[in-house]
């Protein structure tokens, strides 16, 4: 998925050995090859000893399309799929703590209902809700809550899986993409090393 300025985002799902240092190997590879991690979600998988990682990676188009092949070279990566072009369903979870004094609490709760978010903690002046869904849904709730005073937003990053049906889901758009040209991404000019 194009993110403008010649960069592209790809969603990668990987099954990796649950061992110390695995994340360092993967993040080191991303750094070396000039990929930026837009999001990363890790947790135990259905198989004992293996973790599932879902990444959203961005970088120059010509480079990021090789990310799965590069990851597969790592010994601790058991299985890896680039699911960007597949029929996938994805979700993200966010915890949002927002100012909610008595005066505005009703309005905030109403938004919570409309967005089918759950209130999981209530304080005197604030409340915390959880919401899961696609990026646009979460983004728009955050936007609407902004005027009440956002205290904290915590997002998990995308988790994704292939759909069990043939029905195509709706594309959720770019993932937390920064429209300005990210400077941390290596430029692609010439492949020549310039070394002697």
């Amino acid at each position, binding site marked *: 998925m194009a993110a403008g300025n010649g960069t592209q985002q790809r969603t990668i799902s990987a099954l990796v050995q649950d061992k110390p240092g695995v994340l360092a190997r993967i993040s*080191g590879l991303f750094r070396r090859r000039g990929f930026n991690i837009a999001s990363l979600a890790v947790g135990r998988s259905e198989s004992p000893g293996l973790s599932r990682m879902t990444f959203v990676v961005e970088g120059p188009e010509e480079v990021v399309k090789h990310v799965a092949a590069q990851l597969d070279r790592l010994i601790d990566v058991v299985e890896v799929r680039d699911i960007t072009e597949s029929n996938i369903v994805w979700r993200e979870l966010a915890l949002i703590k927002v100012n909610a004094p008595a005066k505005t609490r009703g309005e905030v709760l109403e938004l919570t209902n409309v967005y089918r978010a759950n209130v999981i903690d209530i304080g005197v002046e604030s409340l915390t809700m959880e919401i899961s869904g696609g990026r646009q849904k979460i983004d728009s709730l955050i936007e609407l809550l902004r005027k009440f005073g956002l205290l904290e937003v915590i997002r998990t990053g995308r988790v994704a899986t292939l759909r069990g049906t043939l029905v195509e889901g709706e594309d959720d758009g770019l993932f937390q993409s920064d429209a300005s040209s990210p400077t941390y991404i290596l430029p692609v000019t*010439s*492949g*020549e090393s310039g*070394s*002697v």
Partner: protein
Amino acid sequence: MSKHLSGSQIVCEALLKEGVDVVFGIPGGAILPLYGVLSQYPDLRHILTRHEQGAAHSADGYSRSTGKVGVAFATSGPGATNLVTGLATAMMDSVPMVAITGQVGRAAIGTDAFQEADITGASMPLTKHNYLVMRADDLGATVHEAFHIARTGRPGPVLIDIPKDVFTEMGNYDPDAPLDLPGYQIPCKAEESQVEAAAKLINESEKPVILAGHGVVLSRAFDELRELAEKAQIPVVTTLLGISSFPEDHVLSTGFPGMHGMAYSSLAVDQADLIINFGSRFDDRIVGDAKRFSRSSKKIHVDIDPAEINKTIAVDAPVVGNIKDIFGQLLPKVKQKTHLEWLQHIEHLKAEHPSLRIPESDRLMGQHVVKALSDVTKGEAIITTGVGQHQMWAAQHYQFKNANSWLSSGGAGTMGYEVPSAIGAQVGNPDKLIWSICGDGGFQMTLMELATAVENNLPVKYAIMNNNHLGMITQWQDFFYEGDFQAETYTANPDFVKLAEAYGMKGIRVTKQDELESAIAEANAHDGPVIVDFVIEKVDDLYPMIPAGQSVEELIEEPN
């Protein structure tokens, strides 16, 4: 059946089970427990090098020249960090190696203890895989995994870091335990559909060129390469690291292309209608400007590493798998052909662009030295080199007849590789003639290993191409910095003949063309290590040359 042993004993038993008969290394506190059991394992020959970089390059040279996994030992901290250049060199050229390093005791890890260095962290991008082993029980399986990973698939170096108290801990070792590597698949045969597609392109091509890379050497597919080339009469171009995968006195041999390759070779690649790449990664020294690389050809890329496909050059037919297996699949599908017109054209290119004319001079030129070495040794020696002008002259003017007789740091371009790699090659090939073609610069980076050669009676012949310069730097400054020469001249090189004598070696000096043959013959006849100090002319430029990032259109064949 499981045995109860100390960590050190487990390491040695596992090494022996892997067929290791020699290791190169230097002891130190953290690895002393391993050295403490070596006397129990006389079949593990230990060669004491003078620097850990030397141990790593020797293991590399041993590995490249024998096909066996080279092994290096080093202690924690500075011992381990001294290995790093050797690991990077092996990694870039996919050389199978296992390095074993001592680490501080488990309780001290992470405390900045004396001689602690995070070598697994440091070597992560420079190894195919690495391990920090925290229990003696895991040592046996780890050593076997490490060898399996190092030698299979796309080979590479693997490092095992072992805390001092894991060497002394008692643990169980089951030599027959199966490997547990769920994430590691070894490609062998390619998918039939890929092979079909490649065969179709080959059969349809009128102007095919084979580009043989290091993959052919690593998979030892020399006979198969020759069979395919002869069956379909396809000219064979090698990459720098593919040199000696195909006999250079064969009519189909068409040199090596790229930055300092033969002009006819670069032109053949440029004019072909099909490039059949066996195990080369389309490196930037060959490709130059990727957009203008061999524009009119289709490309077949045969490689064991799927991550190499389409990395720099878009290909029409990828074939992923082990090159040797793929030759087997491909051969029956490829039709016999003559390609008469194309081969005549290649002959014409060779005649029009001989490229290797040695400049007329009464003085001694680097090219004269290599040419004489090639003639006197009949192209049958194993050659190792450093990096620089002498390396390119060696590649250009030595006519390699034997398979796998060229050892050079192509990917990393590591100066200093020349001295220890030759030691490793001689250890692995005690009866063969090894000539190390050295730069005076590179030689001085690792010359302490001369003592290792003398100590172990290794009759390596060192040819120092002594131009009193970092010749290749002179050249780049001439080309790209308007001749603003900086830091490329040596004014205090040692007397290399006296140096040889100081090390107890034979030393010979050659300053004239007519002394070449007799000096080389004298060195060959001497049954110990020799240094021949070839005092050669300094030249600013080496030809042919395609400047970095350019294409064959900018090829400079000879000075004007």
